[in-house]
């Protein structure tokens, strides 16, 4: 294999049109330069801490712990961040980098709308133009986020091709980037795509695991026994795992969206049902048929409704360092309702996949064990859709 750049085991790489190669090379060079630049680091940490709300709380979920009767459960409260999810940190990092590179325009894909809202927010803050591609199906599921993006000054383009969901939004954003490169940065929303995106996005999200570590040492004087996070592309999960990868005693558990079940076609659980492939610039696991046609995946969660997974997760799976489990729509919805009633926290339906697994795992562990569940975002955006799922009519977004 010639290209060792951006590889995680056999995964990763740069499988993109020649038209984009100089753009990703330029991005990599700029990132390598600015990530060690004291001014850049200071500006970014100022944005993180004073604009977006870092550090986020590590909250001891006492009622949930008692109710489940097993491991002690902490929630990493990424739902409390500005714009309501972990996504803002990757975006602030990339937007600041793009600005340093002289770019004046950000484009992005979005599934649930959280990354789109975050990108629109950063663009507004930094005085940049912003265009967000969103599957037409998702613009309906997440109408409120479409309004938020427009309110923030972004143009939202509904994508009608393919399954009109997240994968098509990524394809369309890539097409747009090949059309207009010189003034435009593609602000990719997850740890996926061609190198250097999986590394850049991970680095900006890794603050989550750094904080978990620091806060856990402060509160408990030791590391947690398990860290759980939901996985679509995998940005909040890699952010939650990264600083624990070398701490082998910490179990890392990614929770994928099984949709209606991993034995059905209506699933988005890539590790459970996918196989090795090359798509959207990377080699990784993808849901696909025997001829390599990418599968039309499904999940109740627009943010996890993606047929692939970031290459570093694929590698963590291959090496056995992280475990990946699949959570159905029904389990996620129950967890969504459970966390609201038990702790007074409404999680994003994406994050509810991790909560669902915590409900299964905690009772199996003894009370001296500690688990951390990353609540990647807040669930306000999902209330109307969950109400519809439960058969309630007349709730508008």
């Amino acid at each position, binding site marked *: *294999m*010639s*290209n060792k*750049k951006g590889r995680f085991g056999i995964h990763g*790489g*740069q*499988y*993109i*049109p*020649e*038209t*984009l*190669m*100089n*753009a990703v090379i330029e991005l990599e060079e700029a990132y390598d330069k600015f990530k060690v630049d004291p001014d850049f680091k200071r500006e970014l940490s100022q944005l993180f801490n004073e604009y977006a709300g870092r550090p986020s709380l590590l909250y001891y979920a006492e009622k949930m712990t008692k109710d489940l009767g097993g491991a002690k459960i902490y929630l990493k409260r990424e739902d409390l961040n500005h714009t309501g999810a972990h996504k803002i940190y990757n975006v602030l990092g990339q937007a600041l980098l793009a600005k340093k590179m002289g770019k004046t325009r950000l484009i992005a894909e979005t599934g649930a709308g959280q990354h789109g809202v975050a990108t629109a927010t950063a663009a507004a803050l930094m005085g940049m133009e912003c265009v967000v591609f969103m599957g037409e199906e998702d613009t309906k599921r997440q109408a409120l986020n479409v309004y938020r993006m427009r309110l923030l000054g972004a143009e939202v383009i509904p994508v009608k*091709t*393919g399954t009109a969901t997240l*994968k*098509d939004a990524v*394809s369309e954003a*890539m*097409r747009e980037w*090949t*059309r*207009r*490169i010189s003034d435009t940065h593609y602000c990719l929303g997850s740890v996926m795509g061609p190198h250097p995106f999986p590394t850049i996005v991970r680095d900006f999200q890794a603050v989550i695991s750094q904080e978990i570590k620091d806060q856990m040492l402060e509160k408990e004087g030791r590391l947690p026994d398990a860290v759980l996070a939901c996985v679509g592309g995998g940005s909040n999960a890699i952010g939650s795992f990264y600083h624990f990868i070398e701490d082998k005693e910490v179990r890392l558990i990614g929770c994928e969206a099984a949709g209606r079940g991993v034995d059905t076609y209506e699933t988005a659980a890539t590790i459970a049902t996918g*196989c*090795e*492939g*090359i*798509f*959207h*610039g990377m*080699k990784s696991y*993808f849901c*696909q048929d*025997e*001829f*390599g*046609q*990418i599968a039309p995946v499904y999940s109740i969660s627009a943010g996890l409704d993606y047929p692939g997974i970031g290459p570093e997760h694929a590698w963590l799976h291959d090496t056995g360092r992280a475990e990946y489990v699949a959570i159905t729509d029904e389990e996620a919805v129950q967890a969504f309702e459970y966390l609201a009633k038990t702790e007074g926290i409404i999680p994003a339906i994406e994050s509810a996949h991790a909560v669902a697994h915590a409900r299964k795992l905690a009772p199996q562990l003894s009370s001296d064990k500690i688990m951390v569940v990353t609540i990647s975002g807040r669930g306000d955006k999902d209330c109307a859709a969950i109400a519809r799922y439960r058969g309630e009519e007349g709730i508008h977004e």
Partner: protein
Amino acid sequence: MSRIKDAFKNGKAFIPFITCGDPDLNTTKACVKEMVKAGADLIELGIPFSDPTAEGPVIQAANMRALSAGVTTDKVFELVKELRAEIDIPMVFMTYANVVFSYGTERFLARCREVGIDGLILPDLPYEEKDEFMAYTKEAGVDLISLVAPTSEGRIAMIASEAEGFLYIVSSLGVTGTRSEITTDVGAIVDIVRKNTDIPCAVGFGISTPEQAKKMAGFSDGAIVGSAIVRIIEEYGVDSPAKVGEYVKQMKDALRTI
């Protein structure tokens, strides 16, 4: 070296693209035969992919029509086998890395060799990733065709010096599709290409009219046209072969005047 060099023996080459199985494989077969009769020098056969990220709306839609009609990679190989019994000009596949990789790169290329495919174009396989595939294309005697883009700049020499078959010069930024105007300085790209390789180069992306083909082939060794042909097939469906033939004749005739 494959028979691709033969495509550049009849003056400037005209290279049409067609999506296999749009709207069905029989129509594709008839279209290819008409294109050969009309003077096409090399045929680019698209194997449909669910998510063709380098294509504009016209070819995206053709991919969807073909997949909906049940076309698979195996059926495309069968089509090529049948065509090869009747036509002599070079044929290359244009598809996406995952179509080849998921089939098993070695197995895919062994099939290419067996059915008489001369080259492979993968728009999502840049220079940096090509060796992984080239190990098998070389063994099968299939040329792995490289692309250079308007943004390639300092990369052109590197790409050209290792190019096989012919070099595909992407005329414009963005995805495939017809354009009213091509603003890239294609001549300047070709100058760098010529200094670094002896293989021919052809220009594609955005060409639809005889005037554009003539202009682009004037800078290079040939013109590649996809979306304009796919649009004819979209309009006329199973009745398109004769129309496609007429179009190809008109384009090749324009190139003969250079």
